[in-house]
């Protein structure tokens, strides 16, 4: 019996970064197959965070969905609620007052600020810079206080309602938020300087997880991940929703395309958000009462469909809401979150880097697993010499 097949069996280490892991704050299982130190293949295995939100949205009425949809992701909850509410307003053909638009943009920019500070703090923690993590989180508490003053709750702000916002802002609150934002501005400038000069950060982040512009577009990566590779996409400047048409701001892009560039794009965007917030606090129009009377909102939603885009902290977030006019529930709600594209097709980014770079690259994509939890991913080996780990050999080819 001749030898039919020779199987070259290298010792490929299969490293499960399990659903419970000090570095990961959310349940995702990264199975990294590494040959020695170099990562050969990453199998991203999810399913731990799937809560069936789209089916749940079909079972609840339009107004109850605002609060379910806001709980898709804790860090970007206001952006989800705002995008969903604008979709319902397009179906209803309802116009909202200018003041409500400005207040929505102010709340979203405060949320972008604290989200960018959080992901930079988690990146500092993952590369072992514990002290910087503690300092950034300390300053982030001030932004949470500003958000609590504006919307009434620190994280999940339930601030948006069909037809406007749920709380108005008076002079005292405006002053409090203003000096909090001004104090945070110099702190962020200081942290940006630390990220530019500190040798440990530069060694760990520069030239790690490099992505070219054409790869970004082919894999439809969005948000700071795309802008760090020179692709200029930003829903705020293209869709000009809410009050972004009247507020001067510029889209930040860099060209290096590695993890360090992604972090610097986030710091620059944080400074940009501060400029927007200060501009809003100075030019807040007072044309009408932004708080709609929730007792008189229409019960019956006419048939129709709407597709709205919004620039969440991690990229372009889109909502598709369709109502068939008969039921008070939506017929179909489709949520496509930025992490859905960024994490799932990012298997190709890890190939060629060492195991120590795995958490760095994953954190530089700003993973929001609770956003991403829609689908399963399977191993993507991109033109890599296929090596047979023991486990798959046992399963039989």
């Amino acid at each position, binding site marked *: 019996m001749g030898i039919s097949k020779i199987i070259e069996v290298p010792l490929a280490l299969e490293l499960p970064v399990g659903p419970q892991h000090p570095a990961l704050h959310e349940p995702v299982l990264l199975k990294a197959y590494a040959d020695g130190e170099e990562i050969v293949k990453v199998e991203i295995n999810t399913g731990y965070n799937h809560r*069936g939100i789209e089916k749940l949205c079909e079972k609840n009425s339009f107004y109850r969905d605002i609060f379910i949809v806001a709980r898709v992701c804790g860090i970007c909850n206001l952006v989800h609620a705002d995008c969903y509410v604008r979709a319902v307003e397009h179906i209803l053909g309802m116009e909202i007052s200018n003041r409500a638009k400005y207040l929505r943009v102010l709340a979203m920019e405060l949320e972008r600020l604290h989200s960018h500070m959080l992901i930079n703090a988690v990146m500092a923690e993952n590369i072992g810079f514990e002290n910087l993590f503690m300092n950034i989180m300390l300053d982030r508490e001030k932004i949470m206080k500003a958000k609590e003053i504006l919307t009434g709750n620190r994280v999940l702000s339930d601030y948006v309602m069909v037809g406007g916002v749920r709380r108005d802002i008076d002079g005292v609150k405006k002053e409090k938020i203003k000096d909090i934002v001004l104090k945070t501005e110099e702190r962020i400038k200081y942290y940006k300087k630390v990220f530019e000069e500190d040798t440990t950060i530069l060694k760990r982040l520069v030239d790690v997880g490099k992505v070219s512009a054409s790869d970004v577009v082919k894999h439809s990566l969005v948000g700071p991940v795309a802008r760090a590779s020179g692709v200029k996409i930003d829903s705020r400047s293209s869709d000009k929703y809410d009050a972004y048409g009247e507020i001067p701001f510029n889209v930040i892009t860099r060209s290096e395309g590695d993890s360090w560039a992604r972090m610097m794009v986030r710091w620059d965007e944080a400074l940009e958000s501060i400029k927007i917030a200060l501009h809003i606090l100075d030019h807040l129009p007072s044309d009408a009462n932004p708080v709609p009377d929730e007792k008189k909102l229409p019960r019956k939603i006419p048939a129709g469909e709407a597709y709205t885009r919004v620039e969440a902290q991690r990229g372009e977030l889109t909502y598709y809401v369709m109502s068939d006019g008969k039921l008070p529930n939506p017929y179909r709600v489709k949520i496509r979150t930025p992490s859905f594209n960024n994490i799932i097709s990012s298997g190709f980014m890890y190939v060629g880097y060492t195991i120590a770079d795995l958490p760095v690259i994953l954190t530089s994509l700003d993973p929001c697993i609770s956003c991403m939890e829609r689908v399963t991913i399977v191993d993507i080996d991109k033109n890599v010499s296929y090596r047979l780990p023991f486990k798959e050999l046992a399963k039989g080819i």
Partner: protein
Amino acid sequence: MITLSSTKEETRKTCKIIRYSPWLVHFNTGACNGCDIEVLASITPLYDPERFGVKLAPSIRHGDILVVTGAVTKKSGERLRRLYDQMPNPKFVVAVGACAVDGGVFYKSYSVEGGADKAVPVAMYIPGCPPRPEAILDGIVKLLKKLETGDEKNE
């Protein structure tokens, strides 16, 4: 297996071990990570839980209190049970947030078991969506105080 409601004397003796330095292990069973960033914020120097000896344990084997956030999805429910069995005795579970206490807004969904008490025995519930960092610390301090008095009823 010594749990809360075995003999009162035993509970008080064993709980004296962890009363001064309870180490937390945080497991997110399908949460919207609102509660996770609040747990993270409560570890930072502003609230400084190290005054009570509270610290994030590096691995589950060193943990005393398992902080569960999130509506337990069916798939991460098995991982929660396995994690609970891996913890050394005496062990307690704190359910943080409306989703972990009773399922929150997702309790009717098809892929959610709803509430941590359907998978593991829970010692302390901290409602709120998300509870403030002070509320989380307040819950843990209440659990520690309850351990001293040892007047434990529920399993």
